[in-house]
């Protein structure tokens, strides 16, 4: 039996564990022609170099700002949409809406950004409409101020529908009798939502929040990389793009690897921390699954 699992295991070791050794570079003055073995060890110099750069702190600031805006304005959307869908009585209508809203999840970022370019970009629909109304032609896609909101809007378009799947399934597990009992006790729709539905969804919402925290510092890398140049690095640089441009583009391997390492460590710590908090609050969190 285990023989069948070996190729997969080999994949995980080679492509997920071995690369961790590559973080040696974070402590070296790495030169590709010298390799790991012959590059000079420099201790924490790469870290102090990064900390001394305004560009690094700007990337940290942008990452946190985008993460918070996404958390506050993206996260609740699938929950709201799921509640709305759940209240639709007609099965056929609900199926239809679901088929439509799941679809964008499967469309790649390059395509989505191109489509948004057609609608919101300089020569797109929105500026055209504004122009014909005699208003200034506003180009949201190159406005640094609007960047986090643009990203969030695109995320909502792509994944809000997909996110409803898990919420809808969780809604099915809530006991119908609780609703009936609440109704008999005189609770209206709003109070039933507050006292029955939301507590019923709490475990799933907490699970999703934890999983989200692990991704929080990644804030949609491809999406941002594709649009960074339109708004400039001042607003468009996040930790991942910083690593990409400094490391791969400018060959500043050591500093880029150091920043990547910081990001990876904080990301992992956030998931583990959030999971612990969830346990304390009496919820199951993420990791028990495996040995089920």
């Amino acid at each position, binding site marked *: *039996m*285990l023989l*069948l*699992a*070996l190729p*997969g*295991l080999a*994949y*995980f070791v080679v492509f*997920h*564990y071995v*690369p*961790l050794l*590559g973080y040696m570079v974070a402590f070296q003055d790495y030169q590709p022609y010298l390799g790991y073995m012959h590059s000079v060890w420099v201790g924490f110099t790469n870290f102090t170099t990064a900390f001394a750069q305004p560009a690094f702190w700007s990337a940290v600031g942008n990452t946190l700002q985008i993460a918070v805006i996404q958390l506050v304005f993206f996260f609740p959307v699938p929950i709201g*949409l799921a509640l709305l869908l759940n209240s*639709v009585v007609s099965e056929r*209508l609900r199926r*239809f809406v679901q*088929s439509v809203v*799941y*679809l964008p999840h*499967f*469309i*790649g970022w*390059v*395509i989505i*950004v*191109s489509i*948004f370019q*057609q*609608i919101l970009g300089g020569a797109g*629909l*929105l500026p*055209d409409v504004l122009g*014909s109304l005699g208003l200034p032609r506003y180009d949201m896609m190159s406005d640094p101020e609007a960047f986090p909101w643009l990203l969030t809007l695109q995320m909502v378009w792509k994944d809000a529908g997909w996110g409803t*799947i898990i919420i809808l*399934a969780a809604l099915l597990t809530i006991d119908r009798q609780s*609703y009936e009992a609440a109704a008999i006790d005189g609770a209206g*729709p709003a109070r039933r939502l507050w006292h029955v539905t939301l507590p019923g969804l709490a475990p*799933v919402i907490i699970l999703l929040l934890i999983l989200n925290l692990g991704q929080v510092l*990644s804030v949609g*890398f*491809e999406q941002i*990389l*594709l649009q960074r140049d339109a708004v400039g690095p001042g607003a468009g640089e996040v930790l991942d793009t910083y*690593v990409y441009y400094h*490391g*791969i583009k400018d060959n500043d391997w050591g500093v880029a690897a150091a920043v*990547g*390492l910081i990001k*990876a460590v904080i*990301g*992992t710590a956030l*998931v*583990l921390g959030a999971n612990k908090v969830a346990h304390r609050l009496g919820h199951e969190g*993420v*990791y*028990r*699954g*495996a040995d089920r």
Partner: protein
Amino acid sequence: MEKPRKATLVAKAAVLSVVVLAVAYPLLGVIGTSFASQTDIVESTGLVLWPDHPTLEAYRTLFTGGVVLRALLVSIGITVVGTVASLLITIGMAYGLSRRDVTGSRFMLMTALFTMLFNPGIIPNFLLVNELGLYDTYAALVLPTLVSAFNLVVLRSFFMNLPGELFDAARVDGAGDLRILVRLVLPLSKAVLAVISLFYAVTYWNAFFNALLYLDDSEKWPIPLVLRTFVLQGQSLGGTALGESTAPHQSVQMAVLVVAVVPILLVYPFLQRYFTKGVLTGAVKG
């Protein structure tokens, strides 16, 4: 329960219509514009939903050029080969680890699951691909994303939920593990395999960053990279007859978008009904 009020119903209908339109309008607009002629584009604001003078000129331009056609072939190749390889290895691992009584299986499972917690990051991945000599090869677009721990968990828990008596009966009849997998387990798992194939295929089809990172030679570019240079950065497609073409620039750009989305639109309706099952066996039960 009491009947909902009329105002509530109207509000719900309005919100749902807006949601559906917000998704459908851009997609239909892209398709419409790809068939539009110059007059249609001048007459309309933004995207052309229904061209009055439809033309296939944009597609003719694309397919006589070569760049898009080649990129399409590359993408199709990577998607087919990648999906098959991913499926085989994921099935093997999920099945191999689906019995808890086998020593070592728990350790192997944790090794795979733990990778969900951290991501090695761009620099170490790049260095590894380089060290392995995969830089600027198509293998670099497949191997680094070969198995998804999420899909592995979904498939494993599906296998574990199959009734145990079936296996016992097969074993009594003298069937080995591999035979049971091929004859018994896989036919029972068609739905979940369909979803997982879709997830893998979409990942390979849309792969953008890995291609940007690991491919040097623009002759090897898959469709997302061509899309970026041609549609987002507005550069011209080398080797296409774009100069002499009568098709409007915007239509040609939208035609590339359509070509990149159509494969997804084609398989989507068939697999859609399995989503909930596929997503949930993994997510809720872990």
